[in-house]
């Protein structure tokens, strides 16, 4: 049985623009991606029913959550959500355990010790159960918040910039839990973020918003590998490729197999045979017309130029089809001219192994 998908159709006049959003979020993790002020929060609030300002229709499978034409608006507490907020929002007057148990308690559901223990174990929050939220670190709070949302037995999980308030170390502590959610839970997850790295690592589907409009929709590889799509500016641009761990070398490097091409990067936690996702930032890729020799960079991917997009400034973005997938390279217009690059040219993309930042290495891809 395929789990029901979330379908969203919303119209709302906001301060600077009109929100007009139509998309479907199938099972897996759908990232609602856009800069702050692009309308993401209005969308998620309408889906949750926390705001009634938007017109339109939101449905989960055949269950209608709202339909302004029918005057239908299911109250938030009847929508069976698991909402993970940026600021955790744990109840300060309850212990961690009572926070986790809150949804079951208010809905008068029977106690389910097995489900409770499973979530507590998965998130590693067993030692925190008797503490008060005020005594938790930011990362601990967010793990408890994830647990609390999961124990609500949601039919839809919403996450609003759940990592934005955390430092980088805490971010990489929490990210794997969202990967597990994506891979192990069969309810749709709608995940709001403005961080391209989270998109690359987590998204099954990407819905990119700009000024209230959906400007791109597709899989993470499709959307991030599209050189005309650079919501965070060209600097934030980077393609996503999938690879399999081949072996761990003694010198601390891990060798991956990306569509038959070997890739070396600093040791990753996955075991040989595991699949993972890599994000290769466009500005960490150099192009060469001949196979480079005598270079310190370890990763060389031969490919064919699919597209060259000249930017407004001195820069250009070249998209390259390689056996590993679509790779983007950001270079100057001058280089494009002097190397006589054009569509169909065969070139070599050089990626320094250290350029694949650990924060951008994702867990097993779907």
């Amino acid at each position, binding site marked *: 049985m395929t789990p029901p998908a979330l379908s969203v159709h919303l119209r709302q006049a906001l301060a600077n623009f009109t929100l007009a959003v139509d998309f479907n979020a199938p099972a897996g993790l759908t990232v609602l991606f856009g800069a702050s002020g692009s309308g993401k929060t209005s969308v998620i609030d309408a889906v*949750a*029913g*926390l705001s009634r300002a938007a017109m339109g229709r939101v449905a989960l499978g055949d269950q209608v959550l709202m339909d302004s034409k029918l005057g239908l608006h299911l*109250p*938030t*507490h*009847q*929508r*069976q*959500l*698991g*909402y993970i*907020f940026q*600021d955790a*929002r744990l*109840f*300060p*007057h309850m*212990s961690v355990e009572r926070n986790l148990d*809150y*949804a079951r308690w*208010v*809905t008068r559901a029977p106690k389910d010790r097995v489900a409770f223990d499973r979530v507590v174990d998965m998130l590693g929050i067993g030692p925190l159960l008797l*503490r*008060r*939220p*005020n*005594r938790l670190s930011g990362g601990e709070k967010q793990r408890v918040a994830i647990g*609390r*949302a999961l124990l*609500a037995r949601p039919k839809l999980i*919403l996450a609003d910039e759940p990592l934005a308030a955390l430092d980088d170390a805490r971010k990489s502590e929490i990210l794997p839990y969202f990967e597990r959610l994506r891979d192990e839970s069969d309810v749709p997850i709608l995940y709001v973020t403005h961080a391209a790295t989270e998109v690359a690592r987590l998204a099954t589907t990407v819905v990119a918003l700009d000024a209230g409009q959906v400007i791109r929709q597709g899989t993470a590889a499709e959307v991030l590998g599209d050189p005309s799509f650079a919501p965070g500016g060209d600097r934030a641009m980077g393609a996503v490729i999938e690879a399999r761990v081949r072996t761990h070398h003694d010198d601390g490097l891990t060798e991956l197999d990306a569509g038959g091409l070997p890739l070396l990067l600093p040791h990753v936690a996955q075991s040989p045979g595991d699949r993972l996702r890599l994000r290769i930032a466009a500005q960490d890729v150099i192009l060469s017309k001949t196979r480079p020799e005598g270079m310190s960079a370890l990763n060389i991917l031969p490919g064919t130029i699919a597209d060259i997009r000249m930017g407004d400034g001195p820069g250009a973005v070249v998209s390259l089809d390689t056996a590993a997938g679509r790779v983007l390279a950001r270079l100057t217009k001058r280089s494009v001219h002097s190397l006589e690059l054009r569509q169909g040219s065969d070139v070599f993309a050089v990626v320094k192994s250290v350029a694949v930042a650990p924060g951008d290495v994702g867990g097993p891809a779907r």
Partner: protein
Amino acid sequence: MTGWLGPEEWQAVALSLKVAIWATILSLPFAIFVSHALARWDFRGKQIANGVVHLPLILPPVVTGYLLLLIFGVTGPGGRLLDALGLGIAFQWTGAALAAAIMGFPLMVRAIRQSIEAVDQRLEDAAATLGASRLQIFATVTLPLALPGVLTGTILGFAKAMGEFGATITFVSNIPGQTQTLPSAIYSFLQVPGGETAAMRLVIISIIIAMAALILSEVFARRIKNRMEGA
């Protein structure tokens, strides 16, 4: 205690405590409801409702007492209704409790409303996403988090009820054993020659009760705060 206090004085203390406790207990649920409505709901006539609630704070107490007399006196519409129900309150301690409750009500509402407004609405939203209805959100999130303010309001209301004079004496008069509360008794003692010592004893008792109430609320407030910050 009774050795030190004359029977009339003791009566006044006991009556005042009874009046104040009943006034506080009976008005607290209404005060919480009204505070929540004023803090969180939007409805027509909200400003008027707010004004009516605060009226006893601004009106001269004698005016409030007289209005109570007009409504709940023996010939007033409310009085006749209560009489028919066997609950006559004119010139009885229950009338004193009503006067005390009405005079303390705005003080309670002010404190409780403020503490409800200070509760983070984002926590209430979070509770809604977890399946809590509006009533459940109020009972499990809003009210517990507003508890310090509810406590302050209760103490203020109680203190006001203990000290109420003008409305009480206007509405239910000053009958020893029936409606003579602490302040009325102090007033009466001061009217007779040589009553100063008895009045002074009651003044001291008033101060002790007020201090005890304040200290008690402080202790509870600290306990609530500690519980919130957790171990």
